[in-house]
């Protein structure tokens, strides 16, 4: 055993973990770790332009590759800027290991420069967070962090590294095993419970799979697809689960929930057996609790015991790995053959025909035209989204099959997620087409990351659906708040008519007028100022050409600003807090 400093050991530990990229932003308390990173070549350092962009990039990397995303930031503001991303990763089960610098142990508690209690701040929004108080604990702390982040239900782990501890000399041995008496994730599926579930499936008249993000996290898409095809049981998904089976399969009926399909929501409410895998029955899925899947027995498979019977009481709980459960059901389906679902599927198809997902062509561009173009013009893109209308349209219309992926902030609903997460995706998936889709609101929350994409030479296509509004909030104002458009116009300028009227309290922003300033900012110029390609698309005919130009640009990002129909809404929609049968179709 050689004795090395904590800073030296940090680099060694990451190498032992096989880390290839670290998303890092320097500062006083981590400068010596950066100094060690400089001396090695095994992993490279990505420098995003803001720590929130940094952690979303790490999330995009982790979600698209299945490997943990590794972050390194300094103490104080560096650490607090991670907070949103940690909460996001926690709700969407993304494996992250976040290292934060910390002031020397002797100074902790003194309100030292750039000191915050980041372990305290993140305690309730991370899977685990710990401060390393002793050099002797550093080696196991890093090992445990990677283990906890990536096993069981994955999630973010934060390790706080005081500067003096990292300077100290200690062991260079990276532990092979962890021994955590309080953490023994269970992956094995209970045999009797799964047999019970399988028997229920074959007795059911109207069975249905509801798939959440857990199927993809368990890397079980292929087995799940085979199970669907063998059993002939219809499938619906949450937005996190979309892509768990090919969306072009005739057995797939779309997303459930607030902006889900009519057929899918009706299906959940009419099925007599709901087999849900890797979802926690979030309120955006169930609508009003107590009205959800009232006719169904529910089988619930989840790796997290606390997700079972949290929101919806289930009949057969199964704690364990989704992949293992799916394979056991697949084996049974191979032996017992298809369920008799012909009549049931016919009913679902009738609903599908009655209320298909659609969007009428309008004077200006509508989002479906753009997403249809992506479906058509790209073979295997990985698409990330921001949050709001742009996200809902993408999750409605983007087709996922083969190696295609959709990456979106589902649980926390973090605006500003689209662009930075696509950077992590591009870094983890070189050679693949990577597209981010944002609104003009969300894009501006992390637009500085264009600099990162340019620096790293990443050929990302960043699509902005520009309607000049915070569209989803405006949609709620439109439908449920008497068209009082408070704080949702992004083109408001002081002194103009709309502003004066707002302050008199007599009128609202009542939609786009000729005198409204067209761009705040001009996204094409913004892109060009970063050295990115900037394209504005105002007509349907220009869509394909814009994507062709984006594809041709191999050494850096392209921003395509789509000027979309100002007041386009997302339909169908379930009224917030209402039952999922109460659908506003917009037609």
């Amino acid at each position, binding site marked *: 055993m050689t004795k090395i400093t904590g800073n030296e050991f940090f680099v060694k530990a990451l190498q032992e973990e096989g880390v290839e990229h670290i998303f890092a932003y320097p500062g006083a308390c981590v400068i010596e770790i950066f100094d060690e990173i400089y001396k090695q070549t095994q992993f490279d350092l990505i420098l995003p332009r803001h720590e929130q962009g940094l952690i979303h990039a790490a999330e995009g990397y982790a979600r698209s590759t299945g490997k943990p995303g590794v972050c390194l930031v300094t103490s104080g503001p560096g650490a607090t800027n991670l907070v949103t991303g940690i909460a996001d990763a926690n709700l969407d089960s993304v494996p992250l290991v976040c290292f934060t610098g910390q002031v020397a142990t002797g100074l902790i508690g003194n309100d030292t420069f750039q000191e915050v209690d980041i372990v305290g701040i993140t305690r*309730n929004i991370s899977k*685990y967070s*710990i*401060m390393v108080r002793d050099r002797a604990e550093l080696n196991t702390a890093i090992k445990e962090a990677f283990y906890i982040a990536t096993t069981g239900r994955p999630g973010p782990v934060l390790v706080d590294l005081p500067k003096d501890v990292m300077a100290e000399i200690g062991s260079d041995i990276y532990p092979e095993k962890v021994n955590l008496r309080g953490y023994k994730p269970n992956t094995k599926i209970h045999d009797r419970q799964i047999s019970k579930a399988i028997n229920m499936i074959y007795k059911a008249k109207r069975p249905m799979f509801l798939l959440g993000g857990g199927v993809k996290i368990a890397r079980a898409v292929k087995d799940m697809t085979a199970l669907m095809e063998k059993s002939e049981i219809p499938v619906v998904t949450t937005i996190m689960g979309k892509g768990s089976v090919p969306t072009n399969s005739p057995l797939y009926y779309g997303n459930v929930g607030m902006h889900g399909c009519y057929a899918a929501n009706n299906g959940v409410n009419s099925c007599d057996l709901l087999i849900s895998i890797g979802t926690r029955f979030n309120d955006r899925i169930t609508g009003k609790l107590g009205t959800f899947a009232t006719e169904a027995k529910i089988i619930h498979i989840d790796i997290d*015991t*606390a997700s*079972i019977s949290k929101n919806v*009481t289930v009949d057969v709980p199964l704690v364990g790995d989704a992949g293992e459960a799916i394979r056991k059901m697949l084996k049974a389906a191979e032996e017992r053959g298809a369920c008799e679902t012909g009549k049931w599927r016919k009913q679902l198809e009738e609903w599908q025909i009655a209320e298909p997902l659609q969007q009428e062509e309008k004077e200006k561009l509508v989002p479906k035209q753009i997403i249809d173009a992506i479906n058509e013009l790209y073979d295997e893109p990985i698409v990330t989204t921001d949050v709001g209308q742009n996200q809902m349209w993408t999750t409605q219309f983007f087709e996922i099959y083969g190696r295609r992926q959709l990456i979106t902030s589902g649980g926390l609903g973090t605006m500003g997620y689209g662009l930075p997460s696509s950077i992590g995706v591009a870094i983890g998936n070189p050679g693949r087409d990577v597209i981010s889709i944002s609104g003009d609101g969300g894009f501006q929350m992390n637009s500085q990351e264009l600099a990162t994409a340019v620096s790293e030479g990443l050929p990302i296509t960043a699509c902005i659906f520009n309607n000049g509004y915070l569209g989803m909030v405006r949609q709620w104002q439109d439908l449920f708040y008497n068209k009082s458009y408070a704080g949702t116009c992004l083109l408001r300028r002081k002194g103009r008519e709309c502003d004066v009227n707002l302050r008199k309290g007599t009128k609202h922003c009542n939609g786009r007028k000729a005198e409204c300033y067209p761009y705040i900012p001009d996204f094409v110029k913004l892109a060009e100022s970063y050295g990115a390609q900037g394209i504005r698309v105002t007509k349907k005919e220009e869509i394909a050409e814009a994507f062709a130009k984006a594809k041709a640009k191999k050494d850096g990002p392209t921003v395509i600003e789509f000027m979309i129909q100002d007041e386009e809404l997302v339909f169908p929609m379930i009224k917030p807090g209402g039952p999922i049968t109460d659908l506003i179709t917009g037609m």
Partner: protein
Amino acid sequence: MNKTDNDMKRRWLSLFVENRIGVLARVSGLLSGKSYNIHSLTVGETENPEVSRMTVCLDADDRTYEQITKQFNRSVEVIKVIDFTNLSIRTKEVMFIKVSGLNDRGRAELFQMAQAFKFRIKDMDSDSVLVEAVRTEIKNDSILNAIRSRFTNLEVVRGGPVAIESISMQDR
């Protein structure tokens, strides 16, 4: 499907946790973060200095209580969770009451109460008396109520109940 408050009752949990900085904050933060209201929480080191044991007493319905135990079970710092609600346990709470402004008659009465209610007089001066009661929480409630009905000038400190599984006794 959704349970109502009908099954609301008092529950007892015994937690074995890592004896480390921040673990109490983790446990109490988990309870407050999810808006679970606790009645009391006591903590102390066990026979193993690396392990602390907490006794948590709370009022909850079945559904909430199930969530709480699951949340504790999946916390890395929580080693073991035992549900004491339906087990035979021994439980005691320390309660101190300082009664001031006493005259001779009042003091005599308090000494009589000490015999009847099984609490102890631990300290006194010319006009005040310090009472110590080490009883179950419910009995301490009764003692406090009795003293409160006779005297007005009180200072009360309660430690919260600690509990351990019984060996053979059924009584709490």
